[in-house]
Every structure is written in structure tokens, then in C-alpha cells.
């Protein structure tokens, strides 16, 4: 696999960084070389934030920012009104949006031509299962589907381990997240 670059768009507090770290962690488990890094600005709750991933079969040497990502993930649909989420996205790029709208509506809204648009209502999934609007882990499931990068079950196992480590006394949080990831994986569509 050639080097693949991903940009996550979220708002401070939505877990863009955590999602990028979880994704990298899962990819390492399947034998890939990875990077995950946030962009640290004057960060505060609700402000637009970025996080990034690189993933490859070969060692990754560069440590510069990512300007032309192959895949863009948008955690919060309202960001599309203020942030140019398609900035640097190549003609064959992929954009995955957490939204209630259809892929063709998003394609129109973002004035995209050749890029592949995928949508999933990750907020609805999170609200129903996790009882909170935390779209980052469901979006992880959707990303695995659209990127076709990793084996879904291997990824699930790795994310579960990481969450169990993070929430040692809250198995319901781990189970909820697993359920949300699975559902987003099933519901993400072009």
C-alpha cells in the first residue's frame, strides 16, 4: 500500500484527535506503519480543530503537515459552512461526512465533481447508543468501511482493547462504543 493521508475535521471536544489516535493504533495492530497527530492551535471547546493520519506499508519518514489528504473525515456537519473541508482534496479523493443529508446533497453543497462522497448519521447513532453526541468512534467504523484499509474485525479488537484500557471500570462505555462503531460501519454509504 502506498502512503495514504487522512484529515479529520472536528470541533474542540468532539474527539477528532482521539479518533485519529485510535485509528493509528488499530492500523499498527494490523502491521502498518502509521502516524497520528493533531494540529494544536489556540484550542478551545467548540472551535474548529484538525487531526491527521498517515498510513503505509513502508516506514513513514516525513514529519511535515498534510496539505493534500486522500481522505477527509468531517465529524461535525456545521463545519462545512465555515471551514473549507475540501481544501487540497485531490480529484480522486474521498470525503466522509457525519450528516443527516444524502451523499448527493453533500456533493452539491461542497460543489464537488469527481470526488467520492460518503455519509453516515454518526450523531444519531451516538445519541441513540451512547446517549451523547460523540460522533468520533462511530465515524471510525465508517472510515474503515470507506477506506477499505483495514480488516474490520481486527480493528474492532484493537479499539476495544484501547477503550478498555481507558475506561477500566466502565464496561458499558466500551460496549456502547463497539455497538456504535459496528452500526456506523453498516450504515455508511455513498
Amino acid at each position, binding site marked *: 500500500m502506498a502512503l495514504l493521508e487522512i484529515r479529520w475535521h472536528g470541533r474542540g471536544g468532539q474527539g477528532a484527535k482521539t479518533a*485519529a*489516535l485510535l485509528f*493509528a*493504533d488499530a*492500523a*499498527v495492530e494490523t502491521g*502498518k*506503519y*502509521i*502516524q*497520528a*497527530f*493533531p494540529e*494544536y492551535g489556540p484550542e478551545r471547546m467548540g472551535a474548529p480543530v484538525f487531526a491527521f493520519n498517515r498510513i503505509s506499508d513502508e516506514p*513513514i*519518514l*516525513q*514529519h*511535515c*503537515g498534510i*496539505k493534500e489528504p486522500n481522505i477527509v473525515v468531517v465529524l461535525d456537519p456545521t463545519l462545512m459552512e465555515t471551514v473549507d473541508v475540501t481544501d487540497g482534496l485531490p480529484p480522486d479523493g474521498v470525503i466522509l461526512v457525519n450528516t443527516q443529508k444524502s451523499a448527493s446533497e453533500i456533493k452539491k453543497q461542497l460543489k464537488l465533481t469527481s470526488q467520492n462522497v460518503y455519509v453516515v448519521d454518526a450523531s444519531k447513532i451516538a445519541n441513540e447508543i451512547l446517549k451523547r453526541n460523540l460522533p468520533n468512534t462511530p465515524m471510525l467504523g465508517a472510515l474503515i468501511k470507506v477506506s477499505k484499509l483495514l480488516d474490520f474485525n481486527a480493528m474492532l479488537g484493537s479499539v476495544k482493547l484501547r477503550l478498555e484500557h481507558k475506561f477500566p471500570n466502565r464496561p458499558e462505555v466500551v460496549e456502547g462504543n463497539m455497538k456504535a462503531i459496528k452500526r456506523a460501519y453498516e450504515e455508511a454509504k455513498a
Partner: protein
Amino acid sequence: MIVARTGNEAMAEAMRQINPDVVAAYPITPATEVVQLFSTFVHDGTVSTQFVPAESEHSAISACVGASSAGARVMTSTSSQGLALMHEILFIAAGLRLPIVICLVNRSLSSPINIHCDHSDSLASRDSGWIQIFTENTQEAYDTTLMAVKIAEKALLPAMVTTDGFIISHGMERVELVGDAEVPKFLGERKAKTSLLDVDNPITLGALDLQDYFFEHKRSEIDAMNHVLPIIDEVQKEFGKKFGRNYNTVDEYKMDDAEVAILAMGSTGGTGKVAVDRLREQGKKVGLIRCRVYRPFPKGAMLKAVSKVKVLGIMDRADTMSTLGGHLYNECRSILYDSEERPIMKNYIYGLGGRDISIEEIEDIYAELFNIQKSGEVDKEIVYYGVRGE
């Protein structure tokens, strides 16, 4: 074991495996996580370290000096203003020949206030008598932290291992960890010749030392620095043999037939290597040199590397404020003074306050170096790359 870790997590992991006798620390962005994670190891009992949460960096390093004088294996971590606040005590640690190790996360010194990477903090303490090793990535930060303890204790000098703030400290990468049981075997125990706590053999440390003997003692400290490079070579060799990852004081990348090269430190070394690969694909004879050990300055290895090329672009992520350019530029001009054939040199000061440097920008620098090779002349010897108004 292969895992995904940020630079800070990797350094904390190394500290866990080292299990120092004492860690005294004060938090500062972007190094906070190193000791924050380490303090959880202390809390969970996975290390037997005496952890001293100090009220400032000055106190933290002072506690390190005390503990190291008692014969303990001692580590801490800091960044930027924190290292600046330690400055006074850095010289004392070196003068007392205490092998303390600092995991340093490189961050700009104020003012203006900034939390991102440049090398102004560690380079401002370059004359303090500490060994300084700059790392390129998370794996190297982890490996070098392990090696630094052994190097410092063999040299009887303190050492700092640096990572680029946020770029490496908060960037997650694939890291291969050494087994927990392997680390104590590799390091052995610290065997201090003297201990402040040894009441049967009392010693005095830090006594007044005036015109009669100060100079001799300082001279012996300087001499200790003269013996460090062979120690680093030896420890790097042993590490490579045991764990399969090999390091040099100066990292050469595709230098054998290179006509022009860039010299850099830290994570930019990796970004530059990608630029080299791309230009090599076009048949261009380019190479990259990365200064890994900065103190003591690896004169022999550096001379060997820089003498291979016709034109050398020297990238400094700090300025000496002397109007003479950056640190590496000055060191290289100095060591090349006696050479009959030396490359044409140009200094690129870049990336201050964390400004990104891209592969394309480094390719652009190589293109400029080829133009210099063609014309044989440098129009401007020191430039500030990627700054508005240049």
C-alpha cells in the same frame, strides 16, 4: 513488541523500563505528559521510583542534583522556559559530574510566547556541559532515552535527549519496544564512586573553589567531554547488537555520491530524507546529513560527512542572535576552517515557533543548492526561510 506511541508516551515508557531511583519534575507544555504518565506508573507501583513533584523546574533539577549526588539514578523531563529556569543548576550538575538524564521536548523560548517547536531551548544551554542528543522520530526518542542513561553514567556527565515539540512529542508513530527485562540487563546498576549518604566515608560536594584549583577542576570537566564520543559510539554499537537498531553520532543518508546535501537536526531530518528520495528518482545526486549528537560536537564524523559534497545547505531551527547565523552553521564553518577543500555553505534558518517545513520546501532548497553549485557563488549566506517579508 510493536505498539503505537506518541513521542511523550515513548519517552515515559523508556523511563518506566529504566525504573530510575528518583524522578523530580515540574510540568510544562509540551513535555508534561512524560512525567504525568510516569507519575501514573509510580502510583500503580509498576516502578519503584521516588517521585518528587517540585514547585518549579529550578527545584526539580536541584532535587535531581541532590539525589544523583547520593548515588541514585535520576531522570526528569522539561521544555523551553522550564529548561531556562533550570539553567543555573545545569552547570552545577555537569560540574559535579552527575549523570542525570533529561527528556527534553524542544519548544521555542519566549518572547513572543509560543508552545511549538524550535531548538532555541536546548541550544541556549549548549555550553552547560551536558551531552545533547537530538532525535528524529518516536522510535529514536525511545531508543536514545535508554542509551542516554548508560552514556551519562559511563561519561559521568549529564545528558539531555530531545524530541521536536508537538511534531514528535504529540505525534503517534509505530514503535518497537525492548522487553521490560532487557532494559535493566542493558543498563546494569549505577555504581557511584561516592555518595552523600555514605556517612562512613563523608565527602564534600560543591565546595568553594577559587583561583587555586577552580581551573584544574573545570579543565577535568572539559576533558571528560573529550571522552564522550567514543562512549556514545560504544553504547550505540552495543544497543544495535542487542536490539537491532543502529545509530551514529552523525546520520548520513544517501551521501556516498552526493554532490549537494542538507544538514539538519531533529524531525526535519526525516522530512528531508523524503525530499532526497524524490530528487534521487529524478537522477539528482543529493544527500542528507543529520546531526544526532550535538554536544559534544562530533567533529570527525561531521567533517567526513560534509566534506563529501560541493554545496551544503545548513538548516538551523534557532538563531544565535549574533548576526552570524545559526548554531550548526557556525560549528560547521569552524570545523571546516582547516580543510583545503570545503563545500560552499549556505545557512537556512527555518521553522521558528513551530512553522511547518514541507517536503516541497526542502526540494526547493536543494534546487537552490544546485544553482549555487553551477554559479560557484552564494548571493546571501544566511537566509530566513519561509518567513514573511524575506
